[in-house]
C-alpha cells in the first residue's frame, strides 16, 4: 500500500505551522494536532537562511551529522575525575607569575567591566604585584601583565574568572580521553574577588585559601589515589535536587563527604581542618566550580572535530558573550554583547545596579546542566519566574536545540530523561531558541560583589556569526 493510501486509513495527527486556528479546527474533528512554536529561521535573515540551506545540502549534512555524532559521543563518554588540587603556577599550561586569566572571550584591561577590573586589581594585590588597589590599576594597564581567557588555558573561572599564579586549582582529568581541565576554588560568600570585590577581607580570605584550604585539599587528594568520579557525583547531585549551577547544596555535601576522610588524614592541625569544614559549610556554592571543571573537561574532549556544529564553550567576560564551536578548532570565538541577567536581587539593590552577564560558568549549560537541568531543581524555580512547570519547560525546550540526551546524567521528574546534550549552532539559529543560563548577578561597579541571581540568554549574534563561519568552512 502506498503512503498516501496508508494516510487515508490512518488517524490524522497533523503538525500545524502558522495559523493557529487550523489546529483548533482539526481538534474539533476528533483528530490530533500539534501546533508548533515557530519563528522564521535565522530570524528571517536571508544570509542565515542561505547558510542553513547550505549546511543542509545532503553531502554537507552527512558530514555534519557524522561529526556531531562523534562530538556528542565524546561529551557523553567523557569521565572527568578530580585527581588533585595545586597552585595554578604548578599545573596550568602557560601560566606565569604575571599572567591573569579571566572569564569569557579575550578582552583588554581597559575594556573590562567593573566587576572584572575589581577582580583583576584585587588579584594583583593578592599576588604582591601591586601594593594596593590604586597601584594595581596602573600595573594592570602597564602592559606588564599577560591577560588571557581561562578557556585558552584549559581552565574555567566563575564570574570574573580571575585566576592568578598562586591560586589553588581543581585538577580534573578526563579518564576516557586524557585531557585535563582546571578551575580555582570557591570563595564562598557574596563579597568576593570573582564578584569584583577587592577589599582587605577579600584579600585575607584569598591568603587563607592559599595557605590553608588549598594545601589541605592538595594533600587530601594526594592520599586519594583513585580520585573522585565527578560525573557519578554530578548524576547523584541532580537526583538530589541540584541543577549544579545555581543550586549546589547536594553536590557540595557529596563532595565534602568524599573529601573528609582524606582531609582528616592530612598533617594539618585540627583547628585548620575545622576552619576548612566551616568554610565549606558557609555556602552551598563550594562545589560550583567543581561542576564547571567537569563540564570543561568533557567539552574540551569534543572540541576541534572537523565539520561539527556543536557548541563547546559559552563564556562571558562581562562585556561580550563568546562561544566556541567544535568544527572551528582552536580559539576561534564568536561573540555578541553580554546580556542583562533577570532575577531576584538581594535587598537594597535594584536592576540598574546589575553588571552584565559574566563568567565561564555557562560551561555547565553547554554540558547540559544548570539552566538546562532546571527540572531537577524545583526548589529554585523563583529564578525562572516561579512555577515548577516553567522550570520543566526549560529542560524540555532545550532538547529543541541540542543533539541528544546524556544517559549518564538524568532528570527523574522527566521520566529520567537524559540532560539535553550538544547544543547545535544550526538548531539555535533555525529555531531562534536561545540556550537558557542560570547565573549570579555581580554589581556593575568594582569592589562590591554579588547582588542577585537569575537567568539570561546568549546574544543571537554569536550564533549567527558561528553559523556563517561554519557554512563557509564546511564544504
Amino acid at each position: 500500500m502506498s503512503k498516501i493510501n496508508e494516510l487515508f486509513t490512518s488517524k490524522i495527527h497533523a503538525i500545524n505551522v502558522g495559523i493557529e486556528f487550523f489546529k483548533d479546527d482539526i481538534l474539533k474533528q476528533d483528530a490530533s494536532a500539534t501546533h508548533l512554536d515557530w519563528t522564521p529561521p535565522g530570524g528571517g535573515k536571508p544570509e542565515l537562511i542561505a547558510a542553513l540551506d547550505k549546511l543542509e545540502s545532503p553531502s554537507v549534512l552527512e558530514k555534519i551529522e557524522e561529526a556531531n555524532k562523534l562530538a556528542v559521543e565524546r561529551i557523553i563518554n567523557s569521565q572527568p575525575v578530580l585527581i588533585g588540587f595545586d597552585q595554578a603556577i604548578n599545573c596550568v599550561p602557560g601560566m606565569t607569575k604575571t599572567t591573569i586569566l579571566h572569564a569569557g572571550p579575550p578582552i583588554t584591561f581597559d575594556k573590562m567591566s567593573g566587576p572584572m577590573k575589581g577582580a583583576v586589581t584585587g588579584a594583583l594585590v593578592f599576588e604582591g604585584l601591586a601594593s594596593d588597589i590604586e597601584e594595581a590599576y596602573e600595573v594592570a594597564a602597564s602592559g606588564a601583565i599577560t591577560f588571557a581567557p581561562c578557556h585558552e588555558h584549559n581552565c574555567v573561572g566563575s564570574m570574573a574568572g580571575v585566576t592568578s599564579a598562586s591560586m589553588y586549582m581543581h585538577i580534573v582529568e578526563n579518564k576516557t580521553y586524557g585531557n585535563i581541565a582546571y578551575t580555582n576554588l570557591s570563595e564562598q560568600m557574596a563579597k568576593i574577588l570573582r564578584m569584583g570585590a577587592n577589599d582587605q577581607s577579600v584579600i585575607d580570605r584569598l591568603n587563607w585559601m592559599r595557605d590553608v584550604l588549598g594545601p589541605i585539599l592538595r594533600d587530601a587528594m594526594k592520599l586519594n589515589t583513585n580520585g573522585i568520579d565527578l560525573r557519578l557525583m554530578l548524576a547523584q547531585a541532580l537526583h538530589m535536587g541540584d541543577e549544579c549551577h545555581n543550586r549546589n547544596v547536594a553536590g557540595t555535601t557529596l563532595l565534602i563527604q568524599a573529601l573528609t576522610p582524606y582531609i582528616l588524614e592530612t598533617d594539618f592541625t585540627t583547628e585548620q581542618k575545622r576552619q576548612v569544614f566551616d568554610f565549606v559549610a558557609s555556602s552551598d556554592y563550594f562545589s560550583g566550580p567543581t561542576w564547571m571543571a567537569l563540564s570543561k573537561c568533557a567539552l574540551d574532549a569534543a572540541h576541534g572535530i572537523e565539520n561539527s556544529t556543536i557548541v563547546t564553550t559559552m563564556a562571558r567576560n562581562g562585556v561580550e558573550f563568546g562561544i566556541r564551536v567544535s568544527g572551528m578548532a582552536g580559539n576561534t570565538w564568536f561573540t555578541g554583547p553580554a546580556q542583562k541577567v533577570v532575577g531576584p536581587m538581594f535587598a537594597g539593590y535594584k536592576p540598574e545596579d546589575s553588571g552584565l552577564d559574566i563568567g565561564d560558568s555557562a560551561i555547565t549549560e553547554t554540558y547540559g546542566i544548570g539552566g538546562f537541568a532546571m527540572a531537577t531543581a524545583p526548589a529554585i524555580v523563583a529564578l525562572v519566574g516561579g512555577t515548577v512547570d516553567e522550570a520543566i519547560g526549560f529542560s524540555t525546550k532545550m532538547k529543541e536545540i541540542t543533539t541528544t540526551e546524556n544517559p549518564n546524567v538524568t532528570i527523574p521528574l522527566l521520566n529520567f530523561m537524559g540532560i539535553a546534550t550538544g547544543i547545535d549552532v544550526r538548531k539555535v539559529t533555525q529555531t531562534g531558541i536561545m540556550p537558557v543560563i542560570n547565573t549570579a548577578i555581580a554589581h556593575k561597579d568594582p569592589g562590591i560583589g554579588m547582588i542577585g541571581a537569575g537567568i539570561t540568554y546568549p546574544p543571537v549574534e554569536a550564533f549567527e556569526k558561528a553559523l556563517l563561519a561554519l557554512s563557509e568552512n564546511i564544504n
Partner: protein
Amino acid sequence: MTVQVLIKPNTYFDSVSLMSLSTKANQVEGVEQAIIAMGTEMNKGVIRNVGLMTPEVEEAKTSDLMIVVKAATDELCENAFVSINELLTKKNTSSSKSEVKYSTISSAAQSIPEANLAVISVNGAYAAREAKKALENDLHVMLFSDNVSIEEEIELKKFAHEKGLLMMGPDCGTAIIGNVGLAFANAVRKGNIGIVGASGTGSQEMSVRIHEFGGGISQLIGTGGRDLSEEVGGIMMLDGIRALENDDATKVIVLVSKPPAPSVEEKILAQIKQCSKPVVVWFIGGNEEKVTEAGGHFAKMSKEGALKAVLLTGADESKINKKALNIPLVNEVRAKLTSEQKYIRGLFCGGTLCDEAMYAAMEKFDNVYSNIQKNPEYHLKDINVSQEHTFIDFGDDDFTQGKPHPMIDPSARIERFKQEAKDPSVGVIVMDFVLGFGSHEDPVGVMLPAMIEAKQLAEQEGRHLEILGYILGTDLDQQNYQEQIDKLVAAGVTHASSSQNAGLLAREFVVKGE
C-alpha cells in the same frame, strides 16, 4: 525613619525564594527597605552593610527567618509585616499543564511518531523550506501558504512524488483527509466519492453539493491552483487520481479545476482513460468532447458534476431533489427591473464561485469584466471601479496583499457592496457566503446591515435592488446553515441553493429578449 525586625524562629525558606520575596517586599507601599533572609552570617553581613543591624538580628540563628523593614513610621512597618506575611504564605496557584512545545517540524515529527501530516501556513518566504522539512520527515503536506515560487513548487512536488507523499499546494485552501477537514473545509458526510481539486472553493462547492444530494466524501485532495500548469505538469492531480483509484473506500472520482494546460490535459485524460473507476470532470469552461472521448464524465457546472458523481455511486435519481432553476422567480425579478438596470455585479469571496458565475454570464454576454479575467481585454481597468457586467474575486492577490482573506475579514467587500448598490445601472448583485472550518462565524450577519440599508435606499429612490445570495455550507457546518439562509431571506435577499444556480439566476435576471 524606623527599623523594625521580626524573627520567625525555625522557619526555613531557600535563599532564592527569599531573594524573590525580598524583591517583592521592597515594592510594598511605604517600605524604604526590606530584607527577608535566613539568619546566616553572610546575611547578617548584608544587613550590617546596609546599616540595618539590630540586636535581634545579631541574635538570630541560622534556622531563623529574619524580616527587617525600614519605613517612615512604626505603622508603615507594621503594615509591611502584614503584607510580607501574605507574601510568605501565598502559594503560587499557576498549574498550567506543562505541554511540550516543539519549534521545528523535524523535532515534532521525531518526537511524535504518529504524526502523519503537516499543515503549513507560514509566510510564503519560508513556506517551501518548512514543506521540504515535512517531506523529509515523511509527512504528507498541505501547504496553505501562497507566494511560493513555481520552481519551489516543482521541486517540492517532485520530491513528494518520489517519496510517495501528498504535496497539496502551495496555495491549497482546502482538503478533507480521512474525514478531517483541513484549513477551509466544510463538514460533510463520509462517503465513497473522492475529489481531487485544483481550486479551493470549487472543491468545497463540489463536496457540499455531493453532501446535499445524499452522497459523501472519501477524500478531498487539494493540489493548489498551479498544479495543472505546463510547468508543474499536474504532478499532484495525477498522484491523487492514482491514490483514489487504489482506495477501497472510493467508488467515484471527481476532478475540479480550471482548464489545464494542453500538455497536462493530455496526461490527465490518459490517466482517466486507464482508470478503473468512473471519473467526473468539472473543468470550469473546459472541453466536453475530449473528456467524453477519454471515458470521463464531463460536467459543465458544479451541481451537474456533483449529481453525476452521486448517480455514478448508484444513488436513486428519483429520490434526489435537484433544486432546478426557479423559472417563475426569474420572471418575477425581470418584471421588477427597469430597462436601465441591466448589469450583474458579482462580489465573491470564493475564486471558483466567481469563475462559475462569470462563465455563465459570458455565455450570454460579451461585456463581462473581472479582476480574474484571463483575456486582458476584459480585465477591469481599475479593480475598484466596475464596468458593465463585473465579477470581483476578493480572494485574489489584488485584494489580499497584507490583508486577511475575505472569508475571514469581510470589510473590503462590504464597502464595495455599498458602492455597487447605489449604481442605477445594476440589475443584480450576487454574493457568496462561505461557511465551514476557517471561515467567518457569521458571514451573512456581517453583511446584513449594509444589505438592509441599501434596499431601503433603493426603495426611496423608487427602484428595485435585487440581491442574490448563495451560502456555501452544509447542515453539519459549525455556523448554523439554516439560520444564515433565514437571515438572508428575512432581509429580502434572494437565496440561491447552489453556486451553479447563483450564476444562472444572476444571468437570467438581466437577460433580455428571450
